[in-house]
């Protein structure tokens, strides 16, 4: 595909074209999370971002992760954040600036960080094409087996941590 100014752009395949749509949706929603003045709009944009990331996992052929992403992030964390916003209610309607006084330095730092990561991602010669992944159900089964063999300690510790975190959250948030 020939753009004006003589820039040569390879024609994207259908998969790449759909990926660009999903990635743009995710990126715009992610930007809206930090740019929106209304905190509740931020939470809704965050939910959209979580859905977009689940879509990216589908492109990466990690279906189990995509489903977990929707279950845990959209189902639990987004709900939790929405409830926390409604319970605390302050600064929700943008009467004051949502940014603190170091936002200028922060935005510069985040922008430079993004440019640096971008340069790194473009300059490094990554392997061009990954290997084929087939038999998705077998893959999920293999992942389950990994969790009860190789990663059993990490898995159990995570379970314990989650239990302690939830008990601790109830302890912290209950009305004394």
């Amino acid at each position, binding site marked *: 595909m020939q753009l004006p100014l003589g820039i040569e752009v390879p024609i994207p395949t259908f*998969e790449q074209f759909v990926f660009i749509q999903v990635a743009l949706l995710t*990126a715009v929603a*992610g*930007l809206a*999370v*930090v740019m929106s003045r209304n*905190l509740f709009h931020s939470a809704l944009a*965050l939910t959209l*971002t*979580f859905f977009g*990331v689940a879509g990216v996992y589908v492109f*990466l*052929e990690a279906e*189990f*992760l995509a489903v*977990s992403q929707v279950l*845990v*992030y959209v189902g*639990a*964390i987004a709900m*939790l*954040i929405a409830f*926390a916003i409604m319970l*605390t209610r*302050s*600064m929700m309607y943008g009467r*004051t*600036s*949502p*940014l*603190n*006084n170091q*936002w200028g330095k*922060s935005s510069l730092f*985040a*922008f430079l960080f*993004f440019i640096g*990561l*971008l340069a790194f*991602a*473009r300059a490094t010669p*990554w*392997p061009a094409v*990954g*290997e084929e*992944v087939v038999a998705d159900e077998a893959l999920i089964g*293999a*992942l389950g087996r*990994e969790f009860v063999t190789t990663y059993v300690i990490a*898995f159990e510790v*995570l379970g314990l*941590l*989650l239990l302690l*975190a*939830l008990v*601790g*959250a109830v302890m*912290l*948030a209950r*009305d004394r």
Partner: protein
Amino acid sequence: MVPLSWYLMLAAFLFSCGLYGALARRNAIAMLMGIELMLNAANINLVAFWRHGVGPMEDLTGQAFAVLIIGLAAAEAAVGLALIIAVYRERRTIDVDELDILSG
């Protein structure tokens, strides 16, 4: 097949958004949202490197790592939001600029 660098660029953008949100927002819940964005970006990178690494069918470390991070993010969100609600009960604000009783 989508090139690996595209995933990395998307993750870099999401991470930078989250970094900005965590550093620049005054509301504690908005800061937490920025942290969630950064965790998601890291997860995209892990899964992308798993998919494009050597033998994604045999070595599932990247996916296993991502699942553990999702669980960890759930624990972090639960404790963080509980802390925010407790602070709000005590001080009637969750503006992190006003929560400075520990600064000397």
